[in-house]
């Protein structure tokens, strides 16, 4: 499980230079259905975690997402 790369991978998906724990996911310009699919794919391939579109709607910030993935991917 590649956790050190979480912020880098997420920044690439969100199409920004870097992301921080307090950043709100839905406020990114690139926040759309394809971006959500990319995060769902990241959860599956790097964290062996099944996230649904609904799950993702309930996750507010980058930090919350990280917690969710790390909790599930243990």
């Amino acid at each position, binding site marked *: 499980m590649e956790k050190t790369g979480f912020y880098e991978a997420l920044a690439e998906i969100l199409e920004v230079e870097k992301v921080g724990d307090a950043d709100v996911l839905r406020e990114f310009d690139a926040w759309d*259905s*394809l971006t959500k*699919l*990319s995060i769902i*794919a*990241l959860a599956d391939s790097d964290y062996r975690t099944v996230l*649904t*579109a609904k799950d993702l709607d309930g996750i507010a910030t980058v930090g919350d997402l990280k917690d969710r993935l790390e909790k599930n991917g243990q």
Partner: protein
Amino acid sequence: MNDGGEHPLDLRGRSYLVTGAASGIGRATAVRLSRLGARLICSDLEVPGLEETLGGLRGSGHIARPFDLRNVDAVASWLGEACSSFGQLNGFVHAAGVPCVCPVKGLGLDRLREVILVNAESGFALAKAFVNPRTFAGSQGSIVFISSVMSLVGSAASAGYAMSKGALNSLTRALALEYANRKIRVNAVAPGFVKTPMFDKTSAGWDDEQRRRVEALHALGFGEPEDIANAAAFLLADESRWITGTVMVVDGGYSAQ
């Protein structure tokens, strides 16, 4: 060819390998082929699922041979060993595969290569190993690759998967010509969305609106694994003896628009 009496897709006396047989389309195909009288080597990396499939087959003499197809270099020796105890095969159905719903920006090269390895390279390795005289029975040869309609129509977030299945379609046509004089036909089936565990995984990323939209694109609704199994059985049976090099679309109308 079929003078009445027996089932038009009669496969009695025939032997096949089915990959991906622990689940979904592979499992339904194994069940279908066994009901048509064939004897089977069922393979998958999921051992419990494989055993469950074996328990549901009709007839006797079927065996399970678990194998991780990512070990492409070992396919020939594995298949040779399996056939040394089971006997030779008339063909195989390659249903093992992995989904990949991911926009390009989230798709790393490692993941892309893994998808191509499991879905396409393994098909090449199986077809290469199959012609060995230890493996191929020498007559009524037929290979069926389970491709996808995503190899034929574009869709966002499908680049890796579409590449892997497109490679299978191209392999199908090239091999059909290369293997014709060996009496081996080579075809692919390109399913639309079929209700299997893979479908559940793929559709996890959809909201209700997306699900309705995708379902509406299938004029006949989502498919069942048996719909694909029936097509695979036809392509193995003698009824399809003049069909080779084709990609048979079985998609409830998905690609008709």
